[in-house]
């Protein structure tokens, strides 16, 4: 197999890994937007907190002498999801709910305030510098001839893909089959009408913040494991990228956020490999501009359903 082909495969692997993370975070943006028509500006910070909780729990479990990797992983995910969901719920309670019905600018500003607060809160508690941890899962597979270009697929990358697919499937099932999932979809189409049918729409809004935070926590844990170090600022760039992914896929659409994340991850990966790392963001945002020019609703977004 030629080096070019192997190089291509390598970029696909890297792109899918990155894209999985973007997709997990993007779902939080898209679900909240789908229901309240606003961007949760604190969502990047929610992801960062998920990552911190993950790293802290893993470190604690290691100190406690836990040996089983699957068990550690499971415990870390569960604790991070629970704690981060509580943060997501609180963001909605403090920054959005009191301002329901006020001009759109108001919750936007309070959410940005929330985001700055969360960043500083983590900085004060954990320091502004990188914290790192022992890799939990090291190693991987190499493909290709000895001495030539080899494709490297780490166990961690496989884990990211598998965990992402599992959580996406769970979310999709929940939204399409469960009673509350149905209420979420109804609220996304016509929140006032859902309210007029006896649904406590505030609860549904809280639920979307919680679900988004849970998936961001999964992304945060995976990123902590993948890179082995995190800092209080990782939420900013990841937030912008995931938001881009959500818009790219069609904001408001859950499959759109998944697709947008993957497309963005692949684009960045190819741009860093074939152009230059410095251009990867330019290419990513360029892609966004192009998609919005030709498909203003994003890849899978529906044009606004006319409300009578």
């Amino acid at each position, binding site marked *: 197999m030629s080096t070019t082909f192997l190089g291509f495969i390598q970029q696909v692997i890297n792109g899918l890994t990155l894209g999985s993370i973007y997709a997990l975070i993007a779902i939080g943006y898209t679900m909240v937007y789908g229901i309240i028509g606003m961007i949760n500006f604190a969502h990047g910070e929610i992801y960062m907190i998920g990552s911190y909780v993950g790293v802290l729990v893993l470190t604690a479990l290691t100190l406690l002498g836990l040996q089983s990797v699957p068990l550690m992983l499971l415990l870390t995910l569960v604790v991070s999801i629970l704690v981060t969901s509580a943060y997501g719920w609180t963001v909605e309670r403090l920054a959005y709910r009191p301002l329901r019905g006020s001009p759109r600018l108001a919750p936007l500003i309070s959410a940005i305030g929330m985001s700055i607060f969360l960043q500083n809160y983590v900085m004060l508690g954990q320091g502004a510098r990188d914290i790192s941890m022992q890799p939990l899962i090291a190693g991987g597979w190499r493909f290709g001839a000895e001495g030539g270009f080899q494709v490297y697929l780490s166990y961690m990358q496989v884990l990211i893909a598998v965990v992402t697919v599992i959580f996406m499937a769970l979310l999709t099932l929940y939204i399409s089959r469960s009673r509350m999932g149905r209420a979420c979809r109804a609220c996304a189409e016509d929140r006032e009408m859902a309210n007029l049918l006896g*649904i406590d729409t505030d609860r549904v809004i809280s639920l979307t913040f919680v679900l988004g935070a849970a998936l961001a926590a999964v992304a945060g844990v995976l990123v902590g494991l993948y890179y082995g170090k995190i800092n209080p600022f990782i939420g900013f760039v990841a937030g912008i990228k995931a938001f881009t992914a959500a818009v790219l896929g069609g904001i408001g659409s859950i499959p759109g956020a998944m697709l947008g994340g993957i497309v963005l991850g692949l684009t960045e990966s190819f741009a860093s490999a074939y152009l230059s790392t410095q251009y990867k963001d330019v290419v990513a945002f360029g892609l966004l501009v192009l998609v919005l020019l030709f498909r203003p609703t994003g890849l899978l977004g529906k044009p606004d359903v006319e409300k009578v």
Partner: protein
Amino acid sequence: MLKLEAVHTFYGPVEALKGVSLEVNAGEIVTLIGANGAGKSTLLKTVCGLPQATHGTITFAGEDITRKPTHLIMQSGLALAPEGRRIFPGLTVLENLHIGGFFADKSRLEADLERVYTLFPILKERRHQRGGTLSGGEQQMLAIARALMSRPTLLLLDEPSLGLAPLVIAQIFRILEAIRQEGVTIFLVEQNAHRALQLADRGYVLENGWIVLADTGANLLVNAAVRKAYLGG
């Protein structure tokens, strides 16, 4: 059963209801007619607490619901089939009905579905279709069926005949009669005054946020002012 006393509702500085009092008794069909912009929809929505009345009181089944949150009002035996139907277009017919029975007892769900399928057989046929693919008449039926899924004692209907062909309107009015036979009280807002007054036991006429007339349906049908303004002479 439902009683409004001197209810005022504002949209910002605009006063849409200027002290409305009316009453709907159990077992009745009561209609509210009035021109476009008179405040009919506002009245129904005020009963549902969206928007809330700024002055006055609304009592339902003996309870003051003026300041109750909308979702709790709608859980207390009141249901609305709103103007423009507002079915959920991306949800299937069955899902729309499930949302209508969202807080109802799960064990009753199948029976409630059978009940609305009996009233609207077409909905059973179309149950796996998305709401948005239904015709206007079918969407109206879905909106009424969805409202019935919560087993209301009082059904509020906002212009169910709007934009529908005469045959479909006749069908819907027959079904309203059947719903009343089942013991559901009906408060019907209509611009189609002729049909509404024929069906109703009593009627009110709303003009610019005021109730200007109240009488039996039969009397309003022959009332000179009503004939002139709403029945084309």
